C-alpha cells in the first residue's frame, strides 16, 4: 500500500552552459561568453521524479543548486521553479563553478543539513557539464544514509521506498529505508513542460540563498588541478550538402555515397 506520511523530497540540479553555444577558438580554447545557461537536461528527471512522489504522498519538493552567481539569474530560477518545485535553495559561491564531485557533494551535504528534515534526496543521471555520475553517490556516503544510482522506478511505501535499479544486464529491486539518496536514470520519466500557471506560480515561490559560510562547510582540497580544457581536434569535413528530394538529386547522392562505399 503506497500510503505513507507526507514526504519531504529534495531534488538536486546543476546550472550549466548550453553546449551548443560553446565557441571554439583557433587554439581550441573554449568560451562560454555567448552561452545561455540552463539546468542539466538529466537533472530535470530528478525534479520530475520528486514531483511525482509528492503528488502521490503529499509533502514538499525543494530544489537545491550549488553554483556561481549565474544562479541569481531570474530566468534560471523561474525556469526550474516552474517545473514543480515548492521552493528553491541556492548555494552561491564563485568557487562552486570549478568544484569537483567531492567538493560539490560536501556543499550539498552541508546545505541539506541546514535545510532541516528530509526523507529523500534525488539526483540526476549526471550533470550536463561533467557527467561524472558521482555527486549523488558521494553525497549519500557523506550523509551516511542509504545511496543507490541508476534508479529507474520509485514507489513510496511508508518509511521506505521500493526502487528498481537498472544494471547492465539485470533489474535489481531494492527496498530502501528513508532517508536516502537516489540518482535516477534519464529514462525514469519524461519531465513535464511548464504551463502558463506553473510559470506564473514560479514567480511567487520562495527562494533561499545560502553562502558557504552560512552552511558552515570547511573548504576541502580539490582532488585535481586542471591543466587544460580544449575542444577535440576537428577533422576537416567536405561539407558537400545536396538539397532536395527529386530523382536526380537523390541520384547524385547515391553516386557520391557509392563512391565512398567502394
Amino acid at each position, binding site marked *: 500500500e503506497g500510503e505513507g506520511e507526507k514526504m519531504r523530497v529534495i531534488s538536486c540540479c546543476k546550472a550549466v552552459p548550453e*553546449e551548443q553555444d*560553446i565557441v571554439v577558438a583557433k587554439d581550441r580554447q573554449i568560451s562560454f561568453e555567448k552561452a545561455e545557461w540552463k539546468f542539466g537536461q538529466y537533472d530535470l528527471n530528478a525534479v520530475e521524479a520528486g514531483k511525482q512522489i509528492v503528488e502521490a504522498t503529499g509533502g514538499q519538493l525543494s530544489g537545491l543548486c550549488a553554483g556561481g552567481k549565474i544562479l541569481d539569474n531570474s530566468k534560471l530560477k523561474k525556469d526550474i521553479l516552474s517545473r514543480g518545485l515548492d521552493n528553491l535553495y541556492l548555494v552561491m559561491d564563485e568557487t562552486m563553478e570549478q568544484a569537483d*564531485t*567531492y*567538493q560539490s*557533494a560536501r556543499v550539498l551535504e552541508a546545505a541539506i543539513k541546514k535545510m532541516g528534515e528530509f526523507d529523500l534526496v534525488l539526483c540526476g543521471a549526471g550533470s*550536463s*557539464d*561533467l*557527467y*561524472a*555520475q*558521482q*555527486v549523488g*553517490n*558521494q553525497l*549519500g*556516503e*557523506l550523509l551516511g544514509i*542509504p*545511496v543507490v*544510482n*541508476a534508479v529507474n522506478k520509485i514507489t513510496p511505501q511508508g518509511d521506505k521506498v521500493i526502487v528498481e535499479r*537498472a*544494471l*547492465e*544486464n*539485470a*533489474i*535489481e*529491486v*531494492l*527496498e*530502501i*529505508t528513508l532517508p*536516502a539518496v537516489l540518482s535516477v536514470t*534519464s529514462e525514469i520519466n*519524461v519531465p513535464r513542460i511548464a504551463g502558463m500557471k506553473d510559470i506564473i506560480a514560479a514567480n511567487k515561490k520562495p527562494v533561499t540563498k545560502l553562502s558557504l559560510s552560512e552552511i558552515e562547510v570547511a573548504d576541502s*582540497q580539490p*582532488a*585535481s*588541478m*586542471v*591543466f587544460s*580544457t580544449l*575542444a*577535440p581536434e576537428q577533422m576537416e*569535413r567536405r*561539407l*558537400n*550538402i*545536396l538539397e*532536395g528530394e527529386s530523382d536526380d*538529386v*537523390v541520384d547524385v*547522392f547515391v553516386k*557520391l*555515397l557509392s563512391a*565512398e*562505399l567502394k
Partner: protein
Amino acid sequence: MTVNNVWVITDDQKAVGELCGGGRQLGDQVSVVLFGDQNEAQEAIASGADQVYLFGQPGNSVMIEAYSKSIAELLRAEKADLVMVYSSVRGKLMAGRIASGLATSALSNVSELTVEDGSIIAKHMVYGGAAIRTEKALSDTVVVTVGTGVFEEMPKDVTRQGKVTEVNPGVDNTGIRVLETRPKQGEAVNLSAAKRVVGVGRGFAAKEDLKMAEEFAALIGAELGCSRPIAEGEKWMSKERYIGVSGVFLKTDIYISLGISGQIQHMVGVNQAKTLVAINKDKNAPVFKQADIGLVGDIYNVLPQIVAKMKAQN
C-alpha cells in the same frame, strides 16, 4: 614512469584483463578486488595482478556495494596510490562511496591515464564532449572510473604467480535490502568494431519505420546504431547501440546518420569516422556542419529512393 600501488576494482570479470594491463603500465604493484571465485582470481593474476582480494558474495539480500566502506579502509591501510574502478553501474556507486570515504572525488570515465614525475594525469571529456579536460590528480589516493577500450590487455601468462586473499569483512548495508534481481537481456553487439554504421535518430516517427533503416544498413553491410533517445526514451533499440559521449565511440570508415540532429553529445561518438554522411530534413541541423556528404530531405521520401537505386546498382 609508474606509481607504487595500483588497485583495480571490478564487479565485471570482462574488464579484468584490460584494467590489469593498465595497472601494469602505471604501477609497480597491481592489486585487484574481485567479487567472484578462485578461477577469476587466477585469471586476474594471469592478466598481470600481483595480488587479488576475493570478496565473497555478501548474501543474496545484500549488494556488493555494501563492501564500499571496508574496501576504502583496505585501500587506506595498503596505501593505494591509484584506484581504478570499472565504470559499471555498481562500479560507479562503489567508486563514489570509496572516494568519499577517502575524502576525495572520483575522476570519472577517464579516456587516458599517465604518470608524469610521480603524479597521475587524467583526461576525460566534459561539456558533453565539446572539450577534453586534462588534469593532474592531487589526492594521496587517486580514485578513477574507467571503461573498457582505454587500456590494452596483456597476453595472459598462466605461469604468473600471485597472492589470493579471501576476505569476508562485515558489510555496512543498513537500510538497503535486495528483494529481487531480474536478469535482462543485454544485446551482444560491438559497434565500436564495425567498419560501417548507420545511425537512426528521432527523425523516425515509429519503431516499424526502422525497417527502412535496417534494409538500407543490410544493403551496404553496415551495423545499425542510434542516438540516445532512440535507445532510452523510445527504447526502440538496446543501449549497446547508442552512439556518443555516454554511449559507444565508433572507429568506423563511414557513418551515415538518418534523422539525427547532430548534437555535440552524439557527434563526439562518430567524428573519428573517415567519412560522415547525414540525411536530415532540416538544412540548419548541426549534423550538416560536420558532414562530408549530406542530403537535405525527408528520410521517408528519400530513403526508399536511395535503397531502390542502390539495389539497381548491385
